C-alpha cells in the first residue's frame, strides 16, 4: 500500500487491535449535556445557559475520540461544537465567540480540538475573538489524540 500523502486529518487509521479497553464497568453513563442546540451556527451566544458559564468549544470529532468526554469535560459546562476544516462562514464563529466574552460574560472558554493540524483553526478563531473582545477571559486549549489521550492542556 502506498504511503498516505494527503491531509493528516483525513488519513485512515485502524485502532481495532485495542478492543479490550472499551469494556467499562459502568452499566449506563449519564449524559452531561444540559442544552440544545449545540452546533455553533445554531446557538445563540447569549442564551441563558451561556451566561457566566464555563464554556466548551469542541471540535466535532472530539466527542467521539475522548472516552471520558461527558464526565471529565462536559460536566457543569455549556457547549458549542464546530469543525474548523469543513464549516462555512467562520467569520460568524468569531463574532459568536466574541459575544460569549462580551455579552454572555462567560467565566472561561475551553477549546477542545483533535491533534490533526486543521483542528488548530478552532483555537485560532478563539484567539482572534479574544483579541477583538473588550472583555478578557481565561481561554484554555486541550489537544486530544486520535485514540482519546490528552496530548496537551494549556492556558493560552
Amino acid at each position, binding site marked *: 500500500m502506498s504511503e498516505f500523502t494527503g491531509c493528516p486529518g483525513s488519513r485512515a487509521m485502524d485502532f481495532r487491535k485495542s478492543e479490550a479497553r472499551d469494556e467499562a464497568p459502568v452499566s449506563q453513563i449519564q449524559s452531561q449535556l444540559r442544552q440544545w442546540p449545540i452546533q455553533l451556527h445554531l446557538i445563540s451566544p447569549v442564551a441563558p445557559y451561556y451566561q457566566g458559564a*464555563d464554556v466548551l468549544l469542541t471540535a466535532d470529532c472530539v466527542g467521539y475520540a475522548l472516552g471520558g468526554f461527558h464526565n471529565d469535560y462536559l460536566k457543569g459546562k455549556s457547549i458549542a461544537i464546530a469543525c474548523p476544516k469543513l464549516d462555512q462562514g467562520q467569520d460568524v464563529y468569531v463574532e459568536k465567540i466574541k459575544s460569549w466574552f462580551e455579552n454572555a460574560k462567560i*467565566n472561561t472558554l475551553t477549546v477542545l480540538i483533535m491533534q490533526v493540524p486543521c483542528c488548530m483553526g478552532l483555537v485560532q478563531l478563539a484567539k482572534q475573538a479574544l483579541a477583538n473582545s473588550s472583555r*478578557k477571559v481565561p481561554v484554555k486549549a486541550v489537544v486530544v489524540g486520535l485514540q482519546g489521550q490528552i496530548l496537551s492542556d*494549556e*492556558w493560552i
Partner: protein
Amino acid sequence: LKDIVDIHNLSDEEEKELMAKIGQAIYPGRKVEIPRKERKGKTRSKELTYSPPMKRLVDEHILIKKWIALIPQALEKFDVNSNEDRELILEGVNFIRSYADRFHHAKEEDILFKYFDENSDILKTMLEDHVKGRGHAKATLEALEKKDRQGIVDHLTAYRELLTEHIKKEDEILYPWMDGKLSVKQVGELFSKFNEADDRTDREGIGRCEKFVHEVEKKFRKEEVK
C-alpha cells in the same frame, strides 16, 4: 514526604532520583523501589506556564524584582543628610507599601489564598514573609526618621533578600502547584476577582509606582555611564 514531593511537581526522572536517594538514606545498602504516585495536575515542563490569573501575579513580580535589584545601588552611596537620597528611600518604601503590598500581596491574601488551606505550612510561610516584609518597610521608615543610616541599610537589604527568595518560591513552586489544584471554574473566578480588585485600585498611584522604578533605573544607568 507526600506533600513535599507533590508541591514541587517534579518530573518523573527527578522524582525517581529523589525517592531513590531518600530510600538509600533510610535503608543504606538496600535497593528500594518506591512506586510513583499518580497526582492531579501536570508535571512540570521545562518552561513554566501559568493560568491567566497566576500569570498576572508573575508579571507583577517583574516590577518588584526591578526595584529590589536597584536597592544595593540606592544604598551604596546613600547619604543620610542628602534630601535627594532620603527622598529616594522614602519613595522606595512607598513603592513597597503601595505596589508590592497593597496592590500585589493583597490580591494573594484577600483572594487567591482563600481557595486553599490557609493553615497549610506553605501558605503560613508565605503569609509570614508578607508580615516580615511589612516589618522591614516600617523599620526602614523609622530609621529614616532618625537619620540612622545603618538601620536603613540593614532593613532594606533584609527586605531585598526576603522578597528575592519569596518571589522565587512563588514563581517556581507555589503558583504552578496552585494551578494544578485549581479547577477551570476557579481559574475564571480568580481572573474576574483580580480584575475587580484592579478596578478598585488607584490606577494613578500604580502608574506613579511604575514611573518611580523606571526613573530610578534610568538614573542609575546614567550614573554607570559616567
